[in-house]
């Protein structure tokens, strides 16, 4: 797989490689820590973890800047981190604290940061793609040069909203990249059963856009496909569908007994893990040293420790906050 490295190595200088690694490591440590903390009973609600899928959000968002917007899913922590949402505010949101990204009113499934172009994790499967068509339309009408990226899962790839949004994006030629994150299961339903096509990417021509399937464990593969798609969208060349394939490391939600799958997670962790393969490749090619990468690991670990500690100490919203922010005026 290392043969793709030289293609992108010229674009990804040392700083950007470190950034990408830091983002993936931050997502991984964030999710593993949430997994541990959830088990203590201190984190309420539904929590869906992105561990295993880091290369997707990171490889795509590496091409985005402040002009660009993304929509996300119920499994949205990785997208938030990759788009630059403050990790401490995210953790506080998950703990339901007043200092959270949404002041404790959103929770894990609804973390948003409009100042970062992050239009929200989304509790509705398939809710995001239409929103991102609108964001892309706004970018087009306001001539910002911005693009929109809709992250959605294999489950959402069967929702009418996603298909409507793909058609609309092509009909209007708005700058959107559709990223179908196929982790094999919509909750417990296998995508090999629920998607009536050989792949999700195969649906792209039906909506007048190119489609490609990439190895979602391979940061460089995602980065390259996304680079081409984002560039095309930004240049007015229309939308693209990228299907990213991988395995999620945890259950659909925390507490999921995962009776629907066997040893695939252990195999993926051992043989295909995106962080492990990223490290091997940048070290083998002499671009980054183990020491630099380990230093990032330590910094990220510290950040996550602080995020959890601060979240636990942070004030909870009070009943006085109940009716704020329902309307601008009423």
């Amino acid at each position, binding site marked *: 797989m290392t043969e793709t490295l030289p293609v992108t190595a010229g674009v990804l200088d040392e700083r950007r490689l470190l950034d990408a690694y830091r983002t993936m490591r931050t997502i991984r440590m964030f999710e593993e820590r949430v997994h541990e903390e959830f088990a203590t009973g201190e984190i309420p609600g539904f929590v869906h973890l992105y561990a295993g899928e880091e290369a997707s959000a990171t490889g795509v968002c590496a091409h985005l800047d402040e002009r660009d*917007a993304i*929509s996300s899913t119920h499994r949205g922590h990785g997208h938030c981190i990759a788009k630059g949402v403050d990790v401490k505010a995210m953790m506080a949101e998950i703990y339901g604290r007043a200092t*959270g*990204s*949404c*002041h*404790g*009113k*959103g929770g894990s499934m*609804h973390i*948003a*940061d*409009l*100042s970062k172009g992050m*239009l*929200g994790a989304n*509790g*509705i499967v398939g*809710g995001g*793609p*239409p*929103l*991102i*068509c*609108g*964001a*892309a*339309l*706004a*970018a087009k*009408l*306001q001539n910002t040069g911005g693009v*929109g990226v809709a992250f959605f899962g294999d489950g959402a790839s069967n929702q*009418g*909203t996603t298909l*409507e*949004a793909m*058609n*609309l994006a092509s*009909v*209007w030629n708005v700058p959107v990249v559709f990223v179908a994150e196929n982790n094999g299961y919509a909750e417990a339903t296998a995508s090999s059963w629920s998607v009536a096509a050989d792949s999700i990417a195969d649906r792209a021509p039906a909506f007048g856009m190119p489609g490609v399937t990439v190895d979602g464990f391979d940061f460089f593969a995602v980065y390259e496909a996304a680079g081409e798609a984002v560039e095309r969208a930004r240049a007015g060349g229309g939308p693209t569908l990228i299907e990213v394939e991988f395995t999620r490391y945890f259950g659909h939600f925390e507490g999921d007994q995962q009776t629907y799958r066997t040893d695939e997670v252990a195999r993926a962790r051992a043989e295909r893990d995106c962080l492990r393969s990223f490290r091997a490749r940048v070290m083998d090619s002499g671009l980054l040293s183990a020491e630099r990468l380990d230093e990032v690991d330590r910094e990220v670990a510290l950040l996550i420790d602080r995020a959890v500690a601060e979240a636990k100490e942070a004030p909870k919203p009070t009943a006085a906050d109940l009716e*704020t*922010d*329902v*309307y*601008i*005026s*009423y």
Partner: protein
Amino acid sequence: MSVITYRQALRETLRAEMHRDEDVFLIGEEIGIFEGSYKITEGLLKEFGERRVRDTPIAEEGFVGTAIGAAMLGLRPVVELMTINFSLLAIDQIVNHAAKIYGMFGGQTSVPMVIRTPGGGGQQLGATHSQNIELFYSFVPGLKVLAPSTPGDAASMLRAAIRDDDPVLFLENLGLYNSKGEVPDDGDQVAEIGRAAVTREGSDITLIGYSRMAVVAQQVAEKLAEDDISVEVVDLRSLRPLDRETIVESVRKTGSAVIAEDDWLTYGIGAEIAATIQEGAFDFLDAPVRRVAMAEVPLPYAKPLETAALPSVDSVITAVKETLNAVGRRVG
């Protein structure tokens, strides 16, 4: 003042708001080349171009969601849903997204979007094209629901809706598009959202309606005046926010109330109004509050059946007279 139709009032207001604010644009099925199924957007594509008058595929949830996304990023989309019946195809984006994004994200961004859509039966369009389901949206915190009954209100309330920073469902009515009324020529009246209007003062009974039934209520009041019955008419105009004060104040004065509504009776808008009256004017009531609503059936196609199902001037008059008889005022 000019006398123009409800349809013209909507069109001229859209035009004026698009000239006033570059961020206002239109999205909907058949609104551009076809100029709208009910011709509200006639001439607007020619005037403003396809950047701002955007025809869509038939994909209600997709294009309503698109409007929401654009509104989140600072534009002011005005969506036309061909009829409120088709809003059911977009209800997730309306209820789970437009209504919640401001609060759920902790006040980060509002959704300054308007969904214009007509409801109403009486045109023999059958069960799927004749509903009055504004209640679904009036139920949801985060949404505003406006329902003008006159051309003047259509203009001033649409202007208010477009300028408002919250998502607004703007209910029109198939039976009102050709109705005529006075609209100020200077064209800059902005209604206060959430205000009902006492459109006719009276002393014997309060008759409450909105949209088409506010017009019917006026006709009822005029007719009963011939029998020396003084009916006070309250046009709700806004279903959310609901102007409880105006309703309660009127009933405190007259001592009895009839609600006329085009939606179904059970759990309908009238049920909320009746609850409002008993909470705010219980001691002033001389008779039970009556509701006149559509028959609890999928609206049939054949004219005699459709007519039998819809509330009318006659059915409202009957309810008003029965209520006045109940308080001891024999009105025949």
